[in-house]
């Protein structure tokens, strides 16, 4: 079989002609480059203004004491030292990591199972209805969902406990016990977020050639084995994207714990972004809040880099 693709091996750099010996691009090429730069400019400006500058601003601010009212005072690494010794900050990192693992695993599992189910044999209208229903929570505001869920999960007056009471189950302290509160926050988050992974998986499943499954069937593979040895490896690039996006989102969770539990009981559901918000906007310690923000940024970058390193072993591209 002949390939029409260009070779992926980079030519030896030594073979490149020196910069001065390169032929001058033609006027047409220069025009094309200028046009490309013009098209890219709005995106680049947007990224610089709304991403690069705020990140740089946070790093700079993390080196100062600033309370909005007075002028900033240089603090060196004091804010970082405070972040590393503040028990609330440390607990919030622990909570966030626990939340991330439980929420992302649940979200991916539920999304994958439902995507496989919806991708099975069923009328087109039913498939569309399911896709819409599973995606719908994602377009709702997390804060308003959380307000409603807070009513539903109320231990004394909530519908959830009322329904459980109908089948003889005693009221569950959903939002008033440490484990119950974390479980409720994860439930609400996963319910809202799995729609995104679900859509990715549905798209990924549609891209798997039918011949692969047919070949596996001819080789005697059954349903589960087919999914394990054919579907999952071929879906691994989609799984990688879903898990990277899921983990980044989960590490930045804010609305659900803020509205549902306000970080309680105690600190049991206080997340890193909640601590950043409280430190900055309630306690007016913008320097410390920025330092915590920078640490979270570093954590997200590290986790994402680790995922991509793992992907070299576990992700299969066709």
């Amino acid at each position, binding site marked *: 079989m002949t390939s029409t693709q260009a070779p992926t091996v980079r030519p030896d750099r030594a073979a490149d002609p020196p910069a001065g010996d390169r032929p001058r691009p033609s006027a047409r090429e220069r025009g094309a480059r200028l046009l490309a730069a013009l098209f890219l400019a709005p995106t680049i400006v947007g990224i610089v203004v709304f991403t690069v500058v705020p990140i740089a601003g946070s790093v700079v601010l993390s080196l100062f004491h600033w309370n909005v009212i007075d002028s900033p005072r240089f603090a060196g690494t004091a804010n970082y030292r405070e972040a590393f010794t503040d028990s609330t900050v440390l607990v919030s990192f622990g909570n966030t990591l626990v939340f991330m693992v439980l929420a992302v695993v649940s979200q991916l599992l539920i999304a994958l199972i439902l995507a496989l189910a919806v991708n099975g044999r069923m009328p087109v209208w039913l498939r569309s209805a399911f896709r819409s229903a599973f995606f719908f929570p994602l377009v709702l505001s997390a804060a308003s969902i959380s307000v409603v869920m*807070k009513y539903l999960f109320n*231990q004394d007056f909530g519908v959830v406990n009322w329904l459980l009471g109908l089948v003889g189950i005693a009221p569950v302290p959903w939002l008033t016990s440490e484990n119950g509160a974390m479980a409720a926050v994860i439930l609400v988050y996963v319910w809202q977020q799995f729609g995104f992974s679900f859509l990715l998986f549905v798209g990924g499943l549609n891209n798997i050639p039918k011949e692969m499954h047919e070949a596996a069937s001819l080789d005697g593979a059954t349903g589960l084995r087919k999914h394990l040895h054919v579907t999952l490896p071929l879906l691994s690039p989609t799984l990688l994207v879903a898990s990277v996006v899921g983990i980044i989102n989960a590490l930045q969770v804010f609305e659900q714990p803020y509205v549902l539990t306000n970080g309680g009981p105690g600190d049991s559901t206080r997340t890193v972004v909640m601590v950043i918000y409280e430190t900055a*906007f309630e306690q007016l310690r913008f320097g410390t809040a920025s330092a915590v923000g920078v640490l979270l940024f570093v954590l997200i970058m590290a986790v994402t880099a680790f995922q991509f390193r793992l992907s070299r072993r576990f992700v299969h591209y066709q």
Partner: protein
Amino acid sequence: MHHFERRALLRYGAYGAGAAALAGTAASWDRLTGADIPGRNDGSLVVATLGSAFDQAAVRFLGEGFRELHPDIKLRVNAVQAVDWSDFFAKILTQIAAGTAPDLVYVATEGVQLFAQRLGVPLDRWVKRDAAELREYFSDVHPSLVESMMYEGSLYQLPVEFNAADIYLNRQVLRRAGADFPPPDWTRDDFTDLLRRMKRTSDSHFTPYFWTNRLWGGVVPWLFANGTNLLAESKAPGGDWLWDSFYPAGRRQGRGGGFRWTTPQVTDERVEEAYEYLASLIRDGLCTRPEGGNGNNLVGVFSTGRVGVTPAGGFWAGGLSLAGMKPTGYDVQYFPRWRTQRHQFGAAGYAMLRTSKRQDEAWEFIKYAARKDTLTRLFRANQTTPARRSMLTAERYRESGPKHWEAFYGTLDQFPDTGPIPAPPQVAGVEQVLLKHTGTALASPRSVRPALRRLQRDLEKTMERDA
């Protein structure tokens, strides 16, 4: 060594010159702020109010009434929407950081000292100048409310409203329990007995006592009733210039220059007792857990008889009326006596910001906002308790109730030691650690002592911090 061609050197030189020119141009510009947005900086006196405190018609009236009195002063009322005072202050501080500081901010007790210490202008010179005009106002306002707006001897706000934590009782639940309406001097034990009777005569979906974990109306009323506080309380010296001018000898006795809240004292025996009491109520199913109490659904569960009693201020008369509760469906009584019957309150008024360039105009607005005719029109819905005693009349509460509306101002008149919630300049941090550790302290009676030790440690750390 790399050699540049003349052409390349010229090109890079041109790039450098261009970049330097751009940087120079940018550096020479004045810093753009939110005030540069067209329409923002139009010379108006800007007043920031808590959006949810007044309805739209009231905000409109506030502006129209002032313009009638002072047609030469341009006014813009900025109703900032916020869920609570902490959220409101965060938004105001963000405006200040953005360079769009208002001239006046509606500030409650929670923020009085923070604003006074960092942002506010003492009103002393204007109060002294217009003393004759203000005499009627001060004669109508309880000195405790005025004192709560003082900081280190100076007055920073004229209180226009307040709310003390009284006890609201559902009449239907009282009847169901076969209980009488409690007398004004009822005790903590009477209160507990009432909760037990209510529990016995109701189904499993009923909670006798509902409370919300916050600085106002949470644990603090119980601390006050037990003769203690979160932070050691004292009074700043000074303030005689005000008391001597406006209050007779009997009413100015013991007044100072405002409250000071300093050393945390939550490992105090009485604080522990108050927490243990609440923990025992939770254990016996007589009240909600701190995380379960949510003010948002309180009106619903109270008006439908799923809650028997709850602490609230005069603001709730309007809330219950709006929810359709009849005046005969509920009533209000003082907070029960424990070692004392001291009540806690929060008040609010307009604070003038140092950054204001229209301070004389701002003072005119402060006076206008404290006038009786202004407050009468503003507080028509009974959404709060007016700071002026003369406004609390049977006529005002005829339609909304409660029957014992005298209790609202009675918390000040009948109990001279009634005082503001502890709100030092570090109030945000204080409230945050209080809410957090109250949750763990009330997990069980055994959790109280270790949680209070942690609360003490965190409060000490918070109070050491510069506000």
